[in-house]
């Protein structure tokens, strides 16, 4: 019995040693570790953050010839892992929720522009949407705003403190501008998952819910007499963003139909003559002390990948809009974006 054991042991040690040599090297000009860990700000491996990150990280690992692994640890553990990793062994991918949490004053969210290096943007999820029951009296978002202006209470189911709330805040702000003093009629029903938001709509405990094109499109195809039937009233993405989706759109809703729900068809004024839009963008975050050469290396590798054009097809198949900006550009862009939203949120607070 013993000789077999020791043989098995030897074989294992040998293979371990091989694993060691192949994983320890990467390109010389690229001070990235052979084993890169990518933490994401979501705990779900079925969600858009994981899906998007795994598409990009797979390509990146191939390009740089390293091992990379996406770990769905969630927001706070991801921030913590990022802070501990000064040598760039761990990097993070997340979306606008990273700074929105800070703007909404959610406990534990730092100012990412101060505390980390904002890396490249990689894609947009254009699907952030608001829906009503199919038999709702409100046909359009204008109806909803007018009803609120007329003193009717509108309950909107959202998940507080992030991407789900920003559209709600913009709506409330638009009512404030159009019917000053009436914005209190737009009321948040704070809840959790998409399932909970849908449930509130089925129960009649919410008039409008935040949802997504991906998760709710099939509900919009149900016959009107079905309790579960819904209707889109607003998609927060920019017109240009939706215009880049595949012509077939999502499910039985074509791109043409989706475009009906974005600006300028659906207007949510922001005050300075502009309409509010929100694209949920995914981007990298690095530790403040990460080697600039490593930052540059990932930028270059991603630029190469996006130049080849294969990744765009993959992203579009999964209803993401490719959106690569190298880190410096991305940082300025996202900081500007966050300032815009800060104004809305602060105006509502006062």
């Amino acid at each position, binding site marked *: 019995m013993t000789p077999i054991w020791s043989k098995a042991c030897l074989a294992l040690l040998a293979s371990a040693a091989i694993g060691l040599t192949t994983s320890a090297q990467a390109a010389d000009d690229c001070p990235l570790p052979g084993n890169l860990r990518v*933490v994401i700000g979501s705990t779900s*491996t079925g969600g858009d953050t994981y899906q998007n990150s795994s598409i990009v990280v797979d390509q990146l690992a191939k390009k740089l010839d390293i091992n990379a692994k996406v770990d769905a640890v969630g927001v706070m553990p991801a921030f913590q892992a990022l802070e501990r990793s000064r040598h760039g062994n761990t990097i993070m991918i997340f979306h606008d929720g990273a700074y929105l949490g800070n703007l909404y004053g959610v406990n534990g969210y730092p100012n990412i522009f101060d505390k980390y290096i904002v890396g490249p943007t990689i894609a947009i999820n254009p699907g952030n949407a608001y829906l009503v029951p199919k038999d709702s009296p409100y046909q359009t978002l204008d109806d909803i705003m007018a009803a609120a202006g007329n003193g009717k209470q509108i309950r909107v189911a959202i*998940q507080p403190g992030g991407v789900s709330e920003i559209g709600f805040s913009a709506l409330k702000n638009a009512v404030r501008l159009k019917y000053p003093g009436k914005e209190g009629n737009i009321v948040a029903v704070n809840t959790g998952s998409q399932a909970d938001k849908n449930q509130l709509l089925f129960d009649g405990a919410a008039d409008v819910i935040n949802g997504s094109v991906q998760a709710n499109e099939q509900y919009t195809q149900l016959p009107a007499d079905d309790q579960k039937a819904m209707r889109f009233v607003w998609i927060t993405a920019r017109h240009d963003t939706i215009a880049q989706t595949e012509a077939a759109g*999502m499910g039985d809703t074509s791109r043409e139909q989706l475009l009906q729900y974005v600006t300028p068809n659906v207007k949510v004024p922001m005050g300075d003559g502009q309409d509010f839009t929100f694209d949920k963008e995914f981007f990298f975050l690095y530790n403040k002390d990460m080697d600039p050469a490593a930052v540059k290396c990932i930028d270059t590798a991603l630029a190469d990948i996006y130049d080849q054009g294969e990744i765009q097809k993959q992203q579009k198949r999964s209803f993401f809009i490719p959106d690569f900006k190298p880190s410096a550009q991305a940082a300025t862009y996202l900081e500007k974006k966050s300032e815009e939203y800060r104004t809305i949120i602060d105006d509502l607070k006062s």
Partner: protein
Amino acid sequence: MDILSHLTPMFFTLIAAGTLIGIIFGAIPGMTATMAVAVCLPLTYAFGLVNGIALLLGLYVGGISGGMVPAVLLNIPGTPSSITTTFDGYPMAQRGEGERALKTGIVASIFGGLFSAAVLFFFAPVLADFAIKFSYVEKFLIILLALTVIASLCSNMLMGIFSGVLGVWLSLIGTYSITEGGNGEPRLMFDFMQYYLIDGFSLLPVLIGIFGLSTILLDAENGFADAPGQGRIKLKGGARFSFSIFKGQLVNLIRSSGIGTFVGMLPGVGGSAASVLAYSQEKNFSRDSSQMGKGAPQGIVASESSNNALTGGALVPLLSLGIPGDSTTAILIGAFTLQGIQVGPLFIGNNMDTWYLMIIALVAANVLMFGIMYFAIRHIAKVIEVPKYILYPLIVMMCVVGAYAINYGIMFDVWTLLIFGVFGYVAQKIGLEVVPLIIGFILGKSAEVYFVKSIESYGNLTIFFTKSPIAAFLWVLIAVSVAFAIYLRVRNRRRGASSLVE
């Protein structure tokens, strides 16, 4: 006949491979079905939709079933939903009936699995429409019902209830999570603890700490039962398995499978509630429940048929609403989206072939699970002959892997293991009851969310009674469950007294 072309040897090989790997994951303390599905998710991309799903369903069924193995042999539940299997499984193993207990569990498992697959196949859309009638209020009442079960499971009423409430209290430590609709503010802790406890304690490390590590500490304190003269677990010697165990168990099987399927269907209630509910209903309603908790096969039947019935149940909302019923099906959604398939109310109608193939895969996984486990059990059961100085260090090691990996690599979860290992040890020394505590811990967070959100929505406490006929019916169940628990306790006390007199 597009379906037949998918029924390739590859299809069935992947189901078998998935089931086997799932069983192994489920059988190792600390590793769970969810983990098995999560680590194999990236593989599905290479296999294509149908074969990928086949693999994942195999892992799911295998993982849930495998959890009974350590529950019976080591008194450590391999997955949270096999807690109730330990109640009767371990006492049987101590009598030398480990193999008999496991075989009983396997037969109950395949019954539960096939039952729920049939329910899924025939009634999915109808049941989904029924499930959405359960709003915050009704879900809270289901959880309350599961919590009242504590009264019939504990040996001392006051200590049991205290332990249950303590479990709820422990589960609330951390922030009121914004992903559940909370406000993200911390409570029940000091500021300096926030760095680690912002997301609270995770269930799996708590569970394996209390059941795994504290068991090891208790044994270490005794200097090991391996010493001659002490009651070491025997492999043979007790009664043998025969199908006659199932005589008179049909009601139990159907009731428990029904409970499992139904609880699986309700997103957010938590699959572990299913086996707890099924177990206590058997205890309350069977003609003779006096042996339950001391090694009665009927307890294993209730527990294992209900936890395997979860699989089909949890797929109901996934496939007919696009909403996962539990943590494992939440990962299955990823498999669909990776392949560009939308899940929602139109899924079944739009993807008839995939739907039929999933049912075939689910049935095949259950049959293969039965085949693999039934014939391998004799060898698996030998685990208890491994000396503890070899076995225990390995269990600790695997618990570390499980704790670390459950949230994809968080060191604090490993420390949670130690904290709750020591806590579980002390708790048992001072007479706290571990099972009510864990049930409270599992259900505490959802209880909070549904309770607080119900009040936020309606602003009045009477809503819990007046919301719907379903709510009223659930109150009746709660009342009956409590009354039975008290009745059984009084009756047992009388019997105990009268037997003393004799």
